[in-house]
């Protein structure tokens, strides 16, 4: 079994509302990502998926828990300072909203190669321009887009630029927060193929955050299901889709739309009531690698 690249243990994050009130977005979430593995994190909107991504990228300081990446404690400022370059070059994040995560005053060519400029990486393809063109072609952006700025482009084009920017560093761990949600199906297929290609050819690891379960089913090796900040179930993909144990997972799976009119119209949404969730629960291994939140 491959070595663990990212180790998340008991990750907890509370957003303070006022001095006395707070919202618990993540509540003791633990999972591991191995080298060359694609881990999917799924859940309804508001279940804490993006918060998890931001904590792992050190964009948010978690309220509790442990985060280790390649043996480096991500919550220890000293260790982070010492490994700054490694952390900045081998971890990359694709933000959910490409409209607000790309600088509107920069051209796409500059945006895509900015990580290389910041980390003074020598472009392997000669010039920065050639590098931008190479990355743009990989995500299916035409070279004519490179001289334009984000506001002039469609959502799909911007999203592809954001993906190209993350991939230009050839990261070891890519965290992708809903990377394909705003893309058309044909472009989506291209990006999913690209992620798969990077995994098999370059052995990179991916934390794939999505609400489109059909893409998760196709792409991911293992999946974790978040519900109101709790990791309720995690298992290898086929196991999870064939044998979902937690009612949250079953409700989530029943919401997957099918491009097949007859089966789609027979699909019933499984209702899941928050009140039925027992208060005290622990994560237990029911079969190899299949963990589910159960009553004590």
């Amino acid at each position, binding site marked *: 079994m491959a070595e663990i690249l990212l180790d998340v243990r008991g990750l907890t994050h509370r957003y303070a509302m006022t001095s006395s009130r707070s919202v618990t977005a993540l509540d003791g979430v633990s999972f591991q990502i191995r080298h060359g593995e694609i881990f999917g994190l799924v859940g309804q909107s508001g279940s804490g998926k993006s918060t998890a991504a931001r904590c792992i990228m050190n964009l948010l300081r978690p309220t509790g828990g442990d985060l280790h990446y390649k043996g480096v404690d991500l919550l220890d400022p000293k260790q982070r300072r010492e490994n700054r370059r490694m952390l900045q070059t081998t971890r990359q994040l694709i933000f959910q909203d490409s409209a607000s995560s790309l600088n509107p005053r920069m051209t796409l060519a500059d945006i895509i190669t900015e990580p290389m400029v910041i980390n003074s990486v020598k472009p392997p393809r000669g010039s920065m321009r050639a590098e931008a063109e190479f990355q743009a072609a990989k995500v299916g952006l035409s070279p004519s887009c490179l001289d334009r700025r984000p506001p002039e482009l469609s959502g799909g084009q911007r999203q592809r630029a954001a993906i190209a920017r993350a991939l230009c560093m050839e990261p070891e761990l890519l965290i992708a927060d809903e990377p394909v949600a705003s893309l*058309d*199906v044909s472009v989506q*297929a291209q990006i*999913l193929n690209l992620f798969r290609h990077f995994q098999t050819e370059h052995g990179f690891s991916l934390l794939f955050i999505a609400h489109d379960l059909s893409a998760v089913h*196709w792409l991911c090796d293992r999946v974790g299901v978040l519900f109101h900040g709790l990791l309720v179930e995690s298992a290898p993909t086929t196991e999870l889709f064939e044998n979902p144990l937690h009612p949250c997972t079953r409700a989530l799976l029943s*919401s*997957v739309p099918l491009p097949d009119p007859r089966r*789609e*119209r027979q699909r019933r*949404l499984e209702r899941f009531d928050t009140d039925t969730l027992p208060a005290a629960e622990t994560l237990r291994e029911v079969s190899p690698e299949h963990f589910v939140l159960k009553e004590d």
Partner: protein
Amino acid sequence: MPLLEVIDLSVSFDTPGGELQAVRDVSFSLDAGEILAIVGESGCGKSVLCKAVTRLLPDTARIKSGSVVIDGLSLSSMPERKVQKLRGQLFSMVFQDPMSALNPSLSIGAQIAEAVRVHAPCMKRSEVRERVLELLSLVGIDRAADMYKLYPHNLSGGQRQRVVTAVALASGPRLLFADEPTTALDAGLQTQILDLLRDIRQRLGTSTVLISHDLGAVARAADRGAVMYAGKIVETGTTEEIFYDPRHPYTWSLLLSLPSRAERGRKLHSISGTPPTLIDPPSGDAFAPRNPWALEIDYEQSPPMFRVTDTHFAATWLLDPRAPKITPPIGGNDRG
């Protein structure tokens, strides 16, 4: 007689780069009580088509030719003042983004009441309230009386989309245009909103034009589908025909690129190249350069709509009797 009939509609935008032909010779019709889905990728002209039909185009757009007839009234030749009266009464629109379609400083009850009063100015206060509560429960919002006073920020995305739908239904339109009503929602809520559209049709007999890029949504909600590419409708048929027996290579490509159809571990089909610019579009079939099944004639002459069945039409030369027989990569039988 169909409720909505669009004949040879063409819409262009005048841009500094030249004339952008967003919608090119589109014809379709819709019967009373029917749900038609218009599917296509972003930039294929589906939203422009919808806005052209409802006469909501910006000033930069120009309707070059064609006519729109709703319920026997020719909309394209009508003065704006009269169209304004019909909006809401005969047809109305459900907008894409429930965040920006609602006024954040008015309670949802007041916003629905506004839509009710515009079309029935003489209605008494108590009657208006009665009607708003009725609309709220129609769109599936429980405890309507309590919800009346809430503001948009108090509601979840799904509830907001329901309120937007209630506003559109306020004056009892016979035809509803829904422009991507589910894109901003997560999967479970999408299903609920799509079921709501079907439920409204069942109860009020409202026809709906559903605009979407999501084939799952089309499969769930629509009776008929029209696939658009580069400003043209390339295939139209019943939902079953589109999904189980597609004939246009573009429809094949769309269906093949869905991850839910693909086997795990197999590469997904992706359409190579990029859509053509609609400034000076190619003379032949616009999809030909990206189409692995393209024939020589596709590059020269654009195909007419070929009839497959009485409800199923597709614009591809592959349906010409002289075309070589190829095995479609998908469908071709009843099961899909």
